[in-house]
């Protein structure tokens, strides 16, 4: 199959959906000729014009309001917040309005939008441009939260997200944008709420999100050389969460390592651990549940410090080894 990058896969999904459905439009800072900070929307304004690829002032709350209000009267906007850190300026509209309108209005309205935003560290952008805040959104009823780890998933999940009738927070990872992978040219969807077992193995379950899926797969290959077979489960959608797939895997392996980039404390790893520890998998657990996550620090600028702020392949290998060999 043809290989394209994660960024290209996202762009392709946007293009296909904009061709198919004229209610879909793009709005955000510098999404037009500039193509967005990571070039994801490059070329779209040329095809669809400035009416459907809308550059905004630096008004994150306004962007969130624009997609919510437009969705409320029948459009299907795809908004972009340039860095996930700046969602901090848009939370009111996303959380108090978009997420709640449907319930609060007694089910009489829908707010079908997608909000795309790049998260994560690794680019040297330091503390205010590197956060992974997905668990904030997971905590808000009414929102769905998607975090693709491959170009294939990115395209398929984005198409599903745009067609979904709910507000969806679509979290991309900056370091994944240039990663290539096989992606069908025709439109296809990956359903929201379905995890994927990205690698099978019987010794340990690694539940990882976003770029940590990639790192976990690499770790798993290396662990295999030592005789440890890791199963790597990618939830893909954090909310709604496909609990069954995760639990099934843990029941088989009896050991679970949770890996995410966001700061450990208060992160999505807690949710995963609680889901597992509260489920039938509890009886199958042979060892404590281990979370490997970003350190509880703002992301530092220095390259070495930045690198060691979040889990790397070696960290995953070491944690899996400890867990399997019982020195957890």
């Amino acid at each position, binding site marked *: 199959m043809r290989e394209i990058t994660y960024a290209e896969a996202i762009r392709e999904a946007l293009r296909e959906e904009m061709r198919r459905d004229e209610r879909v439009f793009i709005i955000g800072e510098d999404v037009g000729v500039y193509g967005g900070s990571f070039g994801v929307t490059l070329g779209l304004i040329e095809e669809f014009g400035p009416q459907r690829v*809308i550059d905004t002032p630096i008004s994150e709350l306004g962007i969130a309001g624009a997609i919510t209000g437009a969705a409320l009267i029948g459009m299907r906007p795809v908004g972009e917040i340039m860095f996930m850190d700046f969602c901090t300026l848009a939370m009111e509209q996303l959380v108090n309005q978009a997420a709640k309108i449907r319930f609060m209005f007694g089910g009489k309205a829908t707010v079908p939008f997608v909000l795309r935003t790049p998260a994560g560290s690794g680019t040297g952008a330091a503390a205010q441009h590197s956060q992974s805040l997905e668990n904030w959104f997971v905590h808000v009823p009414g929102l769905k939260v998607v975090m693709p780890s491959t170009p294939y998933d990115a395209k398929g999940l984005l198409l599903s997200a745009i067609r979904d009738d709910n507000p969806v927070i679509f979290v991309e990872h900056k370091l994944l944008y240039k990663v290539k992978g096989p992606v069908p040219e025709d439109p296809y969807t990956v359903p929201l709420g379905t995890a994927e077992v990205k690698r099978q193995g019987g010794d340990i379950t690694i539940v990882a999100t976003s770029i940590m899926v990639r790192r976990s797969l690499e770790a798993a290959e290396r662990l295999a050389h030592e005789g440890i077979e890791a199963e790597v489960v990618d939830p893909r959608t954090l909310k709604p969460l496909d609990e069954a797939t995760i639990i099934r895997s843990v029941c088989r392996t009896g050991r679970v390592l949770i890996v995410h980039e966001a700061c450990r404390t208060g992160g999505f790893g807690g949710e995963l651990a609680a889901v597992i520890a509260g489920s039938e998998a509890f009886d199958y657990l042979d060892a404590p549940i281990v979370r490997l996550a970003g350190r509880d620090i703002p992301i530092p600028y220095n390259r070495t410090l930045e690198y060691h702020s979040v889990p790397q392949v070696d960290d995953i290998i070491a944690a899996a080894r400890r867990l399997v060999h019982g020195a957890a």
Partner: protein
Amino acid sequence: MEWSHDKLIDMLRTMWLIRAFEEKAEELYALGKVHGTMHLSIGQEASAVGAVSALRADDFVLSTHRGHGHCIAKGADLNRMMAEFMGKETGYCRGRGGSMHIADTAGGNLGANGVVGGGLPLAVGVGLGLKMQKRSQIVLCFFGDGAANNGAFHEALNMAAIWKLPVVFLCENNQYAISLSVKKAIAIEHIADRAAAYGMPGITADGNDVLAVHEAVSQAASRAREGAGPSLIESVTYRWRGHSKSDANRYRTRDEIEAWKARCPIQRFTARLIADGTLTEEDADKLRQEAYAVVEAAVAFAESSPEPRLETIEEGVYA
């Protein structure tokens, strides 16, 4: 402006409906029949009615926490409104919303809002959607003097202005944001003067004169409908009651309140209609009585309506 007889009568009737609804709401609250909080717009009826009566029926409204008046002016069914206020399944939001979240999306009321300024960014989206859909409707966005100091105001007015969206921003300046006098909250005279910062027209209107508000909004609505972009209207008015259910009025004087009561928008309008022969004293009295009767009927409807069933509690979070 030319006024049709029916339109004038209708405006007065609507003002009475609002007054009657809110007096009843207050009473129900005092009786412990509703919980939560509520924000009464008694004294501000001219602003809601003047503004909404300048719209087409298919236009949209975004309202505020002090939104009963906007909702009634937009033509809401009082039964369903009262049922919502009392948390009943037959209410506009099936009892999930309550006073602060009444929405009548089918009727073009996109909702009251518990967040001060929360409707302003939404107005950008609605305006943008309308423009993209090439519809001829517009959206009227209500907010208070307090909301005008929130960042949401700034971003929304700027975005609406640069894209020439079909939005009318209507600031109901009732002199206070809870206890903070607008005189302490801004260092200028008129909120409408902020329009200049966005390159849009700004008009200050007497918010206790229903026809003055109507006229200002009519002009702004035409402008919006023609694609010439948004306007900011400041409707200067006053709330007679406390900010919400409880308010010791420590921040204003009894004299001030009385002075504003003397400028009652309903009495002023009634006097004018009687003076110009549109109405007799008796007609006016009948309108008033009818309004209170409609509200009584709404209470009866609401009281006899079922509560939401507990089994449905998780319904409607997702589509």
